[in-house]
Structure formats: C-alpha cells, structure tokens
C-alpha cells in the first residue's frame, strides 16, 4: 500500500489548495534573517517562479523546502508532508536540480540515471524502462553511453532534470535551471519542462533571474525581497498593476524598490562563475 500523508501526518494535513504551503517560515544565519516569516502557497500542477535579487532568500527557501536546511521557525508542507518531521517522505515525493552541476562528469549519462534509480529504490522490474523513457523524453538516447563530462551545458541540464524526474515526483524544484545556457539550449530546457507539466502534471518550482523565463514559462510568480514575498500572482496580472506597457522587469524593479544587490558572498560568486564556465 502506498502511504498517504493524511494517514500519519495528523489533523490539518490535507492540502486542498497548495502542493507547497509555508507558514511563517523563518531561517536565520547568525544575526542575518535570510527568510522572514514566509507565507507561500503553490497550486498543484503549475510552474511557479520565485524571483528576487541575490540574497533575497530564494535559495534558502528552496533548501528548506527540499529538506536540506532545517528552518529556524515556522513550518512548511510539500506534497502534504511536513518538511522537518516527515523529511524522508518529502524526499520521496520531490525532485531537485541544484543550480550547480549535480550530474557526475566521471560517469556516463546512463550510469548517473542508474545511481538515481537505486537511491530512490525504483524496483528492478521498472528501472530499465524508466531510464529509457527518461532518456528518450530528454532527447539523450544517443549520448547515454558517453561520459557526462563530454556533454554540452544543455545536455547536462536535461540529464539532471531526467535524474530528478526518474522516481516520478509530485514536485520538482529547480534552482536557476537555465543559467549559463545559450538561447537554443534554454528553449530546449523550457520545452521539456512544459512537457513535464502537461504529461505528468508535476508541479514545478523554479528560481530565476531571467524575466523572459519567468514570463513565458511560469503560471505564477512570487517576487522575494529581504526574505519575504513582496508580490505574488500570474505574470500578466503583475504586469497589469503597472499599466499596459509594463514589462516584468518594471514589475521586478518596482517590487524590490530598485535595491542594489546586497547578497552573494565571495564563495557564492566563485561557485556561480565556476558553474557558468563548466556549462559554457
């Protein structure tokens, strides 16, 4: 029997509105409050974009929702499970593609997928089929036997999404999925994500700095600033608040008050540029 969240999570656990719900979620690092009483509801089956300047708390939020980082206070549910108390169940029901390079360059594409299949305990009887399906879906069949370090940036990203989707999660988290990709590779990744949403009804939460990505891919957006959501809604509705000719760039700048970026440590910058170099 497949366990359901309601069976063990107790009263109030059913999540009719949101597949992701946070309530007063906070995380501080020493004196710095990275996420400040975050309230977020993400509807099932949408692509949800989390925007905000560097240091706004997007990555910290994703880390808490994916169980990598315990919140300082507040609570969150993903796919109906509580991120702290039911961390193991949350992990079973989500996929995550980190911003950096999470596919192993020393292994082939197929070996990377086999590793994921084993980590997620996909039964042997279904393993091969799932892996072949995922390779076909991501258009990586011919490259499956090659070492990932010979892949292009776009191929690596598609492989990483395939790895994260292998166990058919309800929610997929993507941290800046198209960073450093050329327009062709970027559009290829977008097409795969839209297909995933259509075919598997998976909910996708992604962070991005790319307003075109936010506008054309996402059904709903939330703009974060200083650890809290300052604006939320569908792209068209957000633009409409500023008048007919407004772009998402205008909305973004308006929402964060033209704040000059404060976040991002030396290490973050080094890591980001390293990723860009490898993907590029």
């Amino acid at each position, binding site marked *: 029997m497949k366990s359901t969240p309601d069976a063990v999570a107790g009263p109030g656990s059913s999540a009719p509105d949101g597949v992701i719900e946070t309530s007063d979620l906070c995380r501080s690092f020493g004196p710095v409050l990275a996420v400040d009483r975050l309230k977020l509801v993400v509807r099932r089956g949408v692509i949800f974009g989390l925007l905000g300047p560097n240091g706004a708390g997007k990555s910290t939020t994703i880390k808490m929702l994916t169980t990598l*980082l315990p919140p300082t206070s507040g609570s969150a549910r993903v796919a109906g499970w509580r991120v702290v108390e039911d961390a193991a169940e949350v992990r079973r029901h989500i996929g995550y593609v*980190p911003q950096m*390079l999470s596919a192993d360059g*020393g292994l082939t594409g197929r070996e990377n997928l086999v590793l994921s299949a*084993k980590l997620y305990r996909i039964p042997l009887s279904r393993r091969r089929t799932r892996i072949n399906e995922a390779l076909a879906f991501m258009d990586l069949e011919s490259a499956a036997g090659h070492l990932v370090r010979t892949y292009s940036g776009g191929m690596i990203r598609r492989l990483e999404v395939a790895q994260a989707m292998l166990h058919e999660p309800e929610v997929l988290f993507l941290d800046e999925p198209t960073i450093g990709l050329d327009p062709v590779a970027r559009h290829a990744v977008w097409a795969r994500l839209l297909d995933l949403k259509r075919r598997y009804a998976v909910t996708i939460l992604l962070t991005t700095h790319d307003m075109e990505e936010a506008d054309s891919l996402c059904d709903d957006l939330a703009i974060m600033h200083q650890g809290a959501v300052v604006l939320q809604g569908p792209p068209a509705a957000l633009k409409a608040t500023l008048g007919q000719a407004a772009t998402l760039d205008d909305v973004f700048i308006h929402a964060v008050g033209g704040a000059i970026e404060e976040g991002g440590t030396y290490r973050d910058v080094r890591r980001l540029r390293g990723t860009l170099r490898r993907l590029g």
Partner: protein
Amino acid sequence: MTSVDSAAHSAGWARRRRFGDFLAPTLAVAECELRKLVRDPTELVTRAVQPVLWLVVFGQIFSRTRAIPTGELSYLEFMAPGVLAQGVLFGAIFYGIAVIWERDLGIVQKLLVSPAPRSSLVLGKAVAAGIRGVPYAVIIYVLAAFLGVHLRSSLAAAAEVLLLVVLGSATFSTFSLLVACAVKTRERFMGIGQLLTMPLFFASNAIYPLDLMPGWLQFAARLNPLTYLVDGLRGSMVEHGRRVFGLGLDCGVPLVLLVILVLVTARLYPGLAR
C-alpha cells in the same frame, strides 16, 4: 494463511525492505566511486610513489646500517608491512577532498535530497575507499618480493592482508571524510591532512618496533590505529612475522573505529549541503 502468519510475513518483508533501503544506496554509491577510479586511476598511481620510495631507498639503506633491532626479520622484512600500511594511510587521508568538490558541484545536494539513509551514503563511500587500498597491497607485494622479502604465500595470509588493508583504508578514508565535513573548504582540509599524516606515521610501529620508543611515544602509538594495522599486516605478510596484539585486536580496533566514524560522519554529512 492465518492472520498471525501474514503479520509475521509482512514484518519480515518490512525488515527486508528496510535492509534493502540501506544496502542498495550503499552499493550504488560504492559502485559509482569505483567506476570513476577505474576510469581515472591517476591519483592512485601518484600516491603509490611515496611508499615505493620508502621501501626502495629508505628501506635498503637502513637494512645496511642494521641500526634498528628487528629480531628474526631483516629490516626490509620488518618495514615492508609498515610501508604498505603507510601507503594505505597516505592514499586515504586526502580522500575527503572529493566530497568538498562534490559539495561545490552540487552532487552532495543531489544525494542528500534522495531518501537514502545518510549513513548508507557515507558507508558507500567508505566501502569504495576500502577497496581503493587493494592496489597498494599488490604494488608493495610485488616490490617486496623483488627486493628479497620472504612473503607468506598461503591463501589465508592473503585473505588476512586484504581484510586488513580494506579495513584500514576504509577507516582512514572515513576519518578524512569526517574532517572534510567539519572544515568544508579545500584550503583548511589540505592543511589538516598535511598536519596529520607524519605524526600518525611516526607515532606508529611502521618503521621501528614499539619497544624502541620512549614511554610517551609508546603510549601515543597504542592509541594510533595505524599501529594495529601495521601489527596485523606484519603477522600476515612476512614469514616469521609476529604480532604484538593479535589478529583480533588488530582487526577489532579499526573496525570499531570505522563504525563510530561512519555514524559520526553521517551526522555531519548533511551540513555540507547547507
């Protein structure tokens, strides 16, 4: 089937499933590590240079001076197991740097969002690291035979040597992982690795017997897991080699340490993704 039967059956099934949930990720991680090692053994080869130099240069010169009393064994025979243990130690002590790379790349994050138990991820790395020790044993065996060391050639002796080398390599590598999880950056990690290797080597019975040491050093050597590895290898590898502690203690000390290290590292490992 009665309900009691079916309850017992499902309990057994659940136990097997839990065991599988632990074992499958362990083996999967170990397999990936070994695949990468086979594809690119450069590091293994470069790390083998040092023990070869110790045996060929230091060993041959010191056997001529006859300065260190080693009983029935020639000095080369005495030090060959010590040099193997040293090779295992030096090969393992920088193993943790790989997880710092994996952290910067995002591989650690990918492993940690999976439902695999954290201890199984660490144990998988430890198992692979244990097997990484085996090539050192092969190199030292060939070289020692070539230099005229009388090696024991029974199957039991070979099995004991393999067991000790795998255990030693896994233990020191997991210690290295623990340090990596604690310090998190390459620079600090390299510093600590450099700091640890020589004291561990010199405060052991690898190149001189315990009775030759001053009291304080003997005390330190008895706390040093490398001493037990050398002692075990000395009894299994060379003809007329004698153990001071016995095979039970020589295997038991690294084994207990390994279990503790895996459990502690499993607690620290998630910190890499924060």
